[in-house]
């Protein structure tokens, strides 16, 4: 035990004698959480709308008023001819163009051939479908009004209730993802150089001839970084709650509990990388660059995992951040208890054991 504590002390000294790096390790996560927490969102609001309306009658006016009364859309201007649609898109001044057919109200009453065209820039499919769906619903409600006025039977009124996030804030979806990404990458990067640096500096030899057991050495390496990460976690939770406005609907104890487990898994992953490579350069390229891409794209922080082909879902399942993000959403936003995150806890626990076991196996206590 005394041996262990001495080793932990040595690791602490490594960190604190390099104040600039320590400042970076503590400052970056906060900066990234705030920056990305605010910036990453797919909320569509205040979209500029241009309208081409050759009819200018009571019905088109009512529809336009409905669109204008909404937060999603801002009326930009009327177009004078259909040719202007193309230029409006190319200049990027509008996100949606609404085109009414001629003699709209008349056709609406008699022939049933009245038509509204909703034209969006399809380059970004997500924004395009979101805009189209919202506009369709708003315009469709005018149709409902008409039916109600004329007293037509067989109406079904859908009452929509939005659970957990009634204001549809983008932060609720993306901030847990940013938390998972930042914690995992920072933790893995911190420990990934731990063993590689000793190898590169030649101090590994000294350690290998000491009576320390590999397991003790590995655990001792994680302890100081674990403490640093607790500071980071505290900052991250405080910022999420008080700056990004996320609720902590469930139990704080379990939130902290699963976060600590996740931090340990990430640190262990860093150790694993460190024990497999020989230089800091490669260790950092793997933990920083090569891990960053799958975490951003496959962990479910941004893109829904359900949409992916099976082999990408399989990769997604082995990314610790995926399970952490699910658990954080359940506890923080949905306010669920321990019984709902048992699966995530078990998976993360299994990953921790696995990473430590493989690092031990890969840890060479012989010089080549």
């Amino acid at each position, binding site marked *: 035990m005394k041996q262990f504590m001495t080793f932990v002390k040595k690791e602490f000294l490594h960190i604190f004698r*390099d104040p600039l790096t320590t400042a*970076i390790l503590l400052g970056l996560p906060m900066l990234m959480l705030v920056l990305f927490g*605010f*910036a990453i*969102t*797919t909320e*569509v609001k205040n*979209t500029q709308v241009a309208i081409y309306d050759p009819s200018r009658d009571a019905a088109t006016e009512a529809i336009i008023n409905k669109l204008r009364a909404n937060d999603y859309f801002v009326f930009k201007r009327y177009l004078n001819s259909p040719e202007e649609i193309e230029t409006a*898109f190319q200049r990027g001044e509008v996100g949606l163009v609404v085109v009414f057919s001629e003699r709209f109200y008349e056709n*609406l009453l008699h022939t*049933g*051939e009245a*038509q*509204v065209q*909703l*034209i969006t*820039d*399809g*380059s*970004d*499919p*997500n924004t*395009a*479908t*979101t805009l*189209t769906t919202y506009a*369709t*619903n708003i315009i*469709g409600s005018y149709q409902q009004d008409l*039916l109600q006025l*004329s007293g*037509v*039977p*067989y*109406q*079904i*009124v*859908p*009452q*929509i*209730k*939005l*659970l957990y*996030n009634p204001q*549809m804030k*983008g932060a609720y*979806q993306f901030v847990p993802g940013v938390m998972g990404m930042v914690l995992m*990458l920072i933790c893995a*990067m911190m420990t990934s150089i731990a063993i590689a640096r000793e190898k*590169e500096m030649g101090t590994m030899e000294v350690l290998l001839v000491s009576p320390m057991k590999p397991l003790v050495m590995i655990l001792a390496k994680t302890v100081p970084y674990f403490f640093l990460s607790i500071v980071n976690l505290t900052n991250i939770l405080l910022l999420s709650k008080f700056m990004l406005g996320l609720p902590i609907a469930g139990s704080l104890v379990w939130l902290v509990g699963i976060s600590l487990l996740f931090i340990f898994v990430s640190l262990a992953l860093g150790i694993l990388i460190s024990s497999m490579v020989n230089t*800091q350069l490669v260790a*950092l390229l793997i933990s*920083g660059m090569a891990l*960053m891409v799958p975490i951003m*794209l496959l962990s479910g922080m941004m*893109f*829904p995992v*359900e949409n992916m*082909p099976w082999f990408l879902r399989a990769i997604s399942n082995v990314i610790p951040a995926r399970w952490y993000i699910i658990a954080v959403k359940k506890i923080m936003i949905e306010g669920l208890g321990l019984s*709902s995150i048992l699966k995530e806890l078990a998976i993360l626990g299994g990953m921790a054991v696995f990473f430590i076991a493989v690092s031990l196996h890969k840890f060479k206590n012989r010089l080549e």
Partner: protein
Amino acid sequence: MLKFLIEREFKQIRRNPFLPRVIVAFPFMALWILPMAANFEVRNVRLSVVDNSHSTYSSRLVRKVASSGYFKLANLSSNYSQALRDVELDRADVVLEIPPRFEENLVREGASSVMISANTVNGTRGGLGSAFLASVVGDFAAEVHGEWRQGTGTLAVPSFGIVPQFRYNPHLRYPVFMVPALMVMLMTLICGFLPALNIVSEKERGTIEQINVTPVSRLAFIMSKLIPYWIIGFVVLTICFGVARLFYGLIPKGNLYTIYLFASVYVLALSGFGLVISNFAKSIQQAMFMMFFFVMTFIFMSGLYTPVNSMPQWAQNVSIFSPLKYFILVMRLVYLKGSGIGELTVPFGALCGFALFFNTLAVVTYRKRS
């Protein structure tokens, strides 16, 4: 002199067991696989149905919803709290609850209601799912109403059609949008990280001392670091073009040389930035953390994944300083809309500005004395 320095850089890269693989295999694999994941599309929304009515109309409604192609019937629950548990355990996204007197109300009073509860932790999924469910319910009402009209011979009711049209990407294919932008991300990772780690690892290894005592000028030294990554950038970009063509059938509508022109300026800007970081950092760890922070910020502020227009105003202002933003914009415009250099003068100017600024800074901040 410069020639030998560049030769030295290439030899170092070639003799590293890891780097050549990163440069060739990483962009190839990443661009092949990642676009399959980068997809915000909302489909297969899982639906839990609570049918309290058990009537002909209610089961017809459920069948219509299930066959709309948009929803996947996850569960038929006997009550609302059971359906809510499905949502909590992430087995369902949306709950459709049909009230007990659904059919009676519909037939006798001419109006009825249904309850739609959507999990909006994922706002896009919940919002679009519930909106779409509402419109299917509306369609169902129109269908029932049409039958009644035919039966009684009443005149048509006032109605109009709503027709969506998507410009530039009519089938809303995600790869069309993501592949050109992911190319930029991959170039950024390779041509940003590698130079950032380059000078600082010479510092750690001590070989920088040898350079410092030679008559090599600061400019020549920085050039010798820059040019190899410039060439590597072209290799990466060409691999990306091949992958986009081969796996996603994507060919730019505009001119390929326009992209190469922008890429040449972009890589210069980015590698210059990497070298600046490398000059400032005292250890590989510091360099990596700083570069990591800036690259992540550049990526997330660039509009690569989420639109810049959705960000709060201050974040939109920050995004002006992301070189990625301009190159991604150019890539998408050239690939999708076929824009030429004439329409792209603003991003070109911005990228030239970045290149000039970072590289001047790289030369100035490189010190031969410690």
